[in-house]
């Protein structure tokens, strides 16, 4: 189903090409089928009946990283992100999603299955991959560079309610996302420590499920609805000041993509919009309370050089760019160096890197050059997807480590006397 109000956007495309130079896949291929203008025109011709759904059309539309740079650059205000999201639904409904994706989505939609899957993967990592040093790769990333899974899901180990340290100054709901829950518990711990340090009570509802962005951005919009509705009902509460995320994709989904999804499918979006209005990236909360942070004294003589990569979903879906930089700038022993092209896609884009290996590798290679040119020791980024891609591909001895900005803050918190 293609939303009528998005069809109108197709008539506003001037075909001027101003979207070309910002598109990561066009930069790598220099072929119009991988340029936003090309993709928009394909969608237009499909709707006009000149093109039918084929593997070729599928490839052209699914080989986009959905980085939204084109939508931002368009002089006519064509909402290319929404055009592509609607078209992917058409493709999905005609062609289906493929076995691997269907399995993953089933797991993400069923918390029990997800928990079991994570356990199996962890076992595989510990028993098979690590000791045997197997050289397999998924996409371009060697198996042994994948992060290891948490021994038990973060939400189970963290508890449902974490009290603030010192005087209570606020209360937030923490939407942890799957990455923190199953893989990056260190990020979850950093978020909780920093927030409670700031006097914020952190409520982590057990019932939350996958945000479903990976599901519906692949076109399976209807399939994602059960999770979406469940989360929205759970998150819509008046007793929290904000809904905090540490994942750019969850944040972008809750803030923007989910209300769009409801609108496009002509569903009641009232509750989703209320939730969206409360969603905040953890960096926003920390950045506005920088002077309340009690940080360890660190010598500015021994500074580490840190650069920052803007996740697409953070900088464009959520419009957050200044906050993480302000945080990094406030750390005494951090020398912040801006990289050229910080807001350009890293080439990961979720499953894109495994389905379009060469294209993704080309985009990532450009990003690696930008990062290396800064000479940084650390590249900070607030997205587990970017983190996976960067960590997996930055493999030289002298390459920087990849960290969430909040981890850098947590490492510098002054430990209080109890």
């Amino acid at each position, binding site marked *: 189903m293609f939303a009528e109000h998005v069809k109108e956007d197709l*008539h*506003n495309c*001037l*075909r*001027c*090409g*101003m979207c*070309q*130079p910002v598109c990561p896949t066009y930069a790598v291929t*220099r*072929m*119009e*089928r991988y*340029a936003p*203008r*090309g993709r928009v*025109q*394909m969608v237009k*011709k499909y709707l006009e009946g*000149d*093109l039918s759904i*084929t593997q*070729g*059309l599928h490839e*052209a539309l699914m080989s986009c990283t959905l980085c939204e740079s084109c939508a931002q650059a368009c*002089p*006519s*205000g064509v909402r290319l992100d929404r055009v592509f999201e609607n078209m992917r639904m058409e493709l999905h409904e005609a062609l289906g999603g493929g076995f691997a994706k269907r399995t993953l989505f089933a797991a993400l939609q069923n918390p029990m299955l997800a928990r079991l899957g994570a356990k199996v993967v962890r076992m595989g990592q510990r028993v098979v991959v690590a000791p045997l040093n197997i050289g397999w790769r998924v996409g371009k990333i060697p198996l042994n560079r994948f992060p290891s899974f948490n021994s038990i899901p973060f939400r189970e180990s963290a508890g449902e309610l974490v009290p603030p340290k010192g005087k209570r100054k606020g209360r937030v709901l923490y939407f942890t996302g799957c990455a923190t829950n199953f893989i990056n518990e260190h990020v979850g711990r950093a978020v909780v420590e920093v927030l409670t340090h700031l006097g914020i009570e952190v409520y982590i509802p057990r019932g939350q499920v996958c945000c479903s962005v990976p599901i519906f951005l692949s076109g399976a919009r209807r399939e994602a609805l059960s999770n979406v509705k469940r989360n929205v009902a759970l998150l819509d509460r008046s007793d929290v000041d904000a809904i905090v995320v540490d994942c750019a994709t969850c944040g972008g989904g809750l803030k923007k993509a989910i209300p769009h999804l409801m609108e496009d499918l002509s569903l009641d979006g009232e509750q989703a919009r209320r939730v969206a209005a409360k969603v905040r990236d953890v960096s926003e909360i920390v950045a506005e309370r920088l002077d309340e942070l009690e940080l360890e004294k660190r010598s500015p003589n021994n500074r580490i050089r840190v650069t920052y990569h803007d996740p697409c979903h953070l900088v464009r879906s959520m419009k957050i760019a200044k906050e993480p930089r302000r945080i990094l700038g406030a750390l005494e022993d951090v020398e912040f160096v801006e990289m050229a092209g910080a807001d350009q896609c890293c080439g990961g884009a979720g499953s894109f890197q495994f389905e379009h290996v060469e294209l993704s590798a080309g985009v990532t290679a450009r990003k690696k050059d930008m990062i290396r040119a800064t000479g940084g020791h650390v590249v900070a980024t607030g997205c587990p997807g970017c983190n996976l891609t960067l960590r997996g591909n930055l493999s030289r001895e002298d390459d920087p480590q990849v960290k969430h900005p909040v981890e850098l803050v947590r490492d510098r918190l002054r430990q209080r006397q109890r």
Partner: protein
Amino acid sequence: MNDNVKQELAAIVGPERITDRPEDLVVYSLDPYTKEHKPDLVIYPLSTEEVSAIMKIAYREGIPVTPRGSGTNLAGETVPIHGGIVMALSKMDKILEIHRENRTARVQPGVINFEFQLEVEKQGLMYPPDPASWKMATLGGNVGTNAGGPRTLKYGVTRDFLLGLTAVLANGDVLRTGGLTMKNVAGYDLTRLLCGSEGTLGIVTEIILRLVPKPPASRTIRADFPRLEDSSDAVAAIVGAGIVPSALELMDQVVISAVEAASHLGLPTDIEAILLVEVDGDEEGLDGQVKKIEKILMEKGASNILVATNKEEVDRLWASRRAAFSVMARLRPNALMEDTTVPVSRLTEMIRKVVDIGKRYEVRIGVVAHAGDGNLHPLVLFDQRDDEEMVRVARAREEMFREAISLGGTLTGEHGIGMAKSQFLPFQLDHVAMWVTRRIKESLDPKGILNPGKFV
């Protein structure tokens, strides 16, 4: 096109760089102009040799070939209106050499203008032609259309920076023109003949460019004019005073109001024109020039003058001009950017005529202009789905062209003829000029396979 020929062509470039998939044919059937036609085949060559081999087969078979860079041209130059092959040169994107001492560069045609600028600047040099599309347009496309831009006023257009070309002719022969020297009078000036020929005489595969030292400093001035006539008088007076600005841009009331309504930059909406003047050069001389310009602007009736002294202020002054296209484009679904150009002294007259034409045909037209060289950019807005409106748009455009020519101007200052204006070319070129043009075309491309349906 029969399969044997396709296989023969595929053998030249390999299966990855040739395609007839339906989606590829669709995306190469169009450019910013309103007409479309699908090619039969799209090929992405990487070298002069490949282009030559492809052309030999195309020539033997009589297959039309349309060269294309980024396809951001504005007059339908890259629409393969007779089908055949689209020669997509976008992958030939290497900067082969930048020679600092000689101030020259050798590039492949698919290099993006803006990316080239960045590389050249690292050497303290500048490549002046800066079309509005510079972030996406290729240098090969700039040669094909003889592209200009705001800096043209002071520095000149693409042809003024061309030293030599490698081009593949219709029969596959490789033509080399010009060379690495600034001075070179050996033979006809074939370099300039190819420049602006829109791929109708040959396919450019290598370009030798002249560069200039990058000016170390610049100043930007904005002046608001209650009366349009006064703004053009000021333009003439600045040029007449021996000052050569690096940019002299004008926005008319329609554009000012639209920009202000959308962007709230604090522009006065009760004035008829805004002028933006930029001067560049050595730091020492600039303040004196700014004083002179301010004085002229005051004398000619500017109601308000702002001088930017730092980069932020410069950006703020230019913000309105940069936003103009995007703001105007959002008013209606479709837009055509025209580029009728008149002698500077007739600028006001032409703008008045454009405004009047817009009113009479009930077509929304806003005018921005590279005022210093009389180059108007009337932005014509419409909805392509409305047939009746399209008739009015066509009439309005034709009248605009006739008026420009009657004022001693031209149909097109920097966008080209393509499909959009080929029928109007005889308005401007007399029968002798048309005869010479046709004879040149026939002698270089006797089968008429190079970008047919365009230009002549």
